[in-house]
């Protein structure tokens, strides 16, 4: 592998803003490894986007946190230097660091929901950045805040400046975060997974904005992500990290088209393929699930001076799902796709309409009658950390379902062991607690729990979106295999069209609680009829860019 660390030698006109040399950062004793990052060296140049890619636990954010002086307690650099504009930042005191943050280095975080103060108006929060560094008069600060909001492309900036964060959407909040990061015209912008929490279309807009700002201001950008699709969209250079070490570094185009390292190849191959989903035979058997004109409206109680608010989460939804079929429900947040899934498993009570499962209407059942039918439809949840009771042993968590339906405890526990075997964890997992497992393993436990009741239909709500790409691929594979073996039907809810393309026979696209389009996966990808579907497809990161090794 030819590692070109020093791009200066090749191109003398490039100005290096940040140069990291042989950096090692130690983790506190008792962590799963001694060094968070080991002998890491790379440069970030002016006018260039450097993407640091890796899965969770790869140490990709550590170098950025070292630069910002934001390392968690007990974690400290032990070797190497971090040179920012000719100054070694490791040796700086907290006070010197604070002067650097915001002024010379701006940072954007992953969660736009929590990164803003909920009780402060947007304009005041941006003005606070100037205040912290003692710049400008209060009046000038407000003016600058407005200019910045215009620059980051917020709709109606005059209104947005006096809005509270909760009045803005996720994408708009991320724009505010970017405005704050840019306020003092930093030389370096560090973006730590800035689009991970956003919808595809919003993600595409934010990526466009960052690219545009880089060009206009000539900033250096350090972009941390786990998604090779995003890398393909935005990166000039890429640095792939694994277990705290750099496995590959180079020009984005080279790495993507011609990866040298086996791990990079595997990561790129694990991106849900951009290729069109293969043609699948849709079986023409009697439908298992028929949804007829399902409606659900969420109402917020109004006050004396405030009218009640209504959100039509499901607006006249009708669809059918055949036995053994996988149907993808795709849409952005707020499209009602999760509400649909929750209505099908009856965690929500639909207002009207029918939910026919094999001819039995589930939509209006209540109390014990509902409880007796519950075993027929099961769900795999999104968050592998929240979906298992931290105080219940794994075997028990799985056995609880059959036990609630009358199976004796010892039989249920034995079945739990077999199920854990089936999902590839081994029967010995029965005795352990959830926190002893990784995210991917927990998701397997969740799948085993859903299978324990021999359901006819499984609803998977964003079941893989919290997982790393390589783990995602494994879990999808497992689902596909189980589906074949147990002839299950699957309702697969996702915001990620790439994932849907991998596993779904048919796809339903939802927006604002309505079905926009439905058809076979092939049809949706090749001949989308609706403009909205087309815009979703266009927003998939890395779709136009050349990505190798996906075949």
């Amino acid at each position, binding site marked *: 592998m030819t590692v070109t660390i020093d791009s200066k030698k090749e191109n003398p006109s490039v100005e290096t803003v940040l140069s990291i040399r042989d950096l090692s950062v130690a983790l506190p004793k008792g962590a799963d490894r001694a060094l968070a990052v080991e002998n890491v060296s790379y440069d970030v140049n002016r006018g260039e986007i450097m993407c640091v890619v890796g899965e969770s636990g790869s140490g990709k954010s550590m170098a950025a946190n070292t630069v910002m002086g934001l390392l968690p307690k007990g974690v400290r650099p032990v070797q190497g230097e971090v040179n920012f504009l000719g100054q070694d930042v490791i040796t700086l005191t907290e006070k010197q660091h604070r002067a650097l943050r915001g002024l010379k280095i701006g940072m954007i975080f992953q969660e736009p929901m929590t990164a803003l103060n909920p009780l402060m108006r947007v304009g005041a929060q941006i003005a606070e950045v100037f205040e912290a560094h003692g710049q400008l008069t209060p009046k000038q600060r407000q003016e600058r805040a407005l200019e910045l909001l215009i620059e980051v492309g917020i709709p109606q900036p005059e209104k947005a400046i006096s809005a509270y964060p909760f009045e803005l959407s996720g994408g708009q909040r991320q724009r505010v975060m970017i405005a704050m990061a840019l306020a003092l015209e930093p030389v370096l912008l560090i973006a730590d997974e800035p689009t991970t929490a956003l919808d595809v279309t919003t993600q595409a807009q934010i990526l466009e904005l960052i690219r545009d700002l880089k060009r206009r201001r000539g900033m250096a950008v350090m972009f941390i992500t786990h998604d090779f699709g995003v890398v393909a969209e935005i990166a000039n250079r890429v640095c792939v990290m694994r277990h705290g070490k750099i496995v590959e570094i180079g020009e984005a185009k080279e790495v993507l088209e011609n990866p040298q390292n086996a791990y990079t190849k595997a990561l790129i191959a694990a991106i849900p393929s951009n290729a069109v989903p293969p043609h699948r035979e849709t079986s023409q058997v009697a439908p298992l699930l028929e949804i007829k004109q399902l409606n659900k409206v969420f109402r917020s109680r109004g006050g004396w001076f405030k009218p009640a608010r209504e959100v039509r989460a499901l607006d006249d939804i009708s669809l059918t799902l055949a036995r053994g079929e996988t149907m993808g429900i795709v849409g952005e947040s707020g499209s009602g796709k999760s509400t649909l899934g929750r209505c099908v498993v009856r965690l929500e009570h639909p207002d009207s309409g029918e939910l026919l499962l094999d001819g039995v209407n589930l939509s209006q059942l209540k109390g014990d009658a509902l409880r007796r039918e*519950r075993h027929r439809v099961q769900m795999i949840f999104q968050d592998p950390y929240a979906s298992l009771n*931290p105080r*219940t042993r794994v075997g028990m968590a799985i056995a*609880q*379902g059959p036990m609630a339906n009358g199976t004796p405890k010892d039989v249920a526990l034995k079945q739990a062991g077999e199920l854990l075997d089936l999902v590839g964890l081994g029967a010995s997992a029965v005795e352990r607690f959830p926190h002893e497992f990784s995210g991917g393993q927990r998701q397997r436990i969740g799948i085993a729990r859903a299978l324990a009741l021999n359901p006819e239909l499984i609803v998977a709500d964003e079941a893989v979106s919290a997982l790393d790409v390589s783990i995602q691929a494994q879990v999808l594979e497992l689902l596909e295999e189980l589906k074949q073996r147990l002839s299950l039907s699957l309702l697969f809810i996702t915001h990620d069209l790439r994932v849907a393309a991998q596993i779904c026979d048919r796809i339903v696209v939802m927006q604002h609680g309505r079905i926009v389009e439905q058809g076979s996966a092939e049809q949706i990808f090749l001949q989308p009829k609706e403009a909205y579907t087309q815009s979703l497809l266009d927003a998939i990161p890395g779709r136009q860019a050349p990505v190798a090794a996906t075949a």
Partner: protein
Amino acid sequence: MSFFARFAQNRGALIGLIILLLIIVMAILAPLLFPESPWRMVQRPFLPPLSQDGYLLGTDTMGRNVAAGLMHGAWVSLLIGLVSTSVALLIGVPLGAIAGYYGGLIDDVLMRFTEFFQTIPNFALAIVLVAIMQPSITSIVLAIALVSWPPVARLVRAEFMSLRHREYVEAARLVGQTNSTIILRQILPNTLSPIIVLASLMVATAILLESALSFLGLGDPNVMSWGYMIGAARTVIRQAWWLSFFPGVAILLTVLALNLVGEGLDDALNPKLSRER
């Protein structure tokens, strides 16, 4: 690893348990070491500690033996603290759990009921209750329990409200578990930590509340308690410091021990902590 081994890993908890056991032993041994009633006047009043053989901790305003009072009082104070806390938990936990889990109208009704108790000042209500029921150990325990359950209900309700929408609770609903199973098996175990901490503090408050009642003459006239001793010594605190000092230290140690034990229990019950250590 056995439950006790996990508990013993927390050194503070072990110390707390030892202190608590010592206090219990003290209470049991009291009738053997001091067979006479602690109310009997045995020496001249205001005898300082260590000034005379047989009166290690001195005598009080009426010439009663402080050491005897301390040991006999241990029993009553512990009893009042533990029993009234248990009763308060028995009222507060189910009410809070039901209100928090079901929400809606049930929640409204139960919480208005709780607020009805909360709006009356604790101590005033306790005085009234004891006065109506005649001062006795039972009436004091009951009165203390009745004034101290609302915070428990509020705490448990808040915990239930935040936990009932967790995905694992929804998963339990989906597999067809009944509401009572979900409340007892899924949610309640996860609310234990704050309940244990609150309960150990409530024992302390109960002991203090009893002392305040005794001070007003509403204590059980037949039994000696630490609270009564402190109450009686308040007026002479500058002349005879030992009268309030020793029972005060006893209360402090008991409360500290209970807190340490509570923390140890919490750690031992938490699967995550017990395996990491």
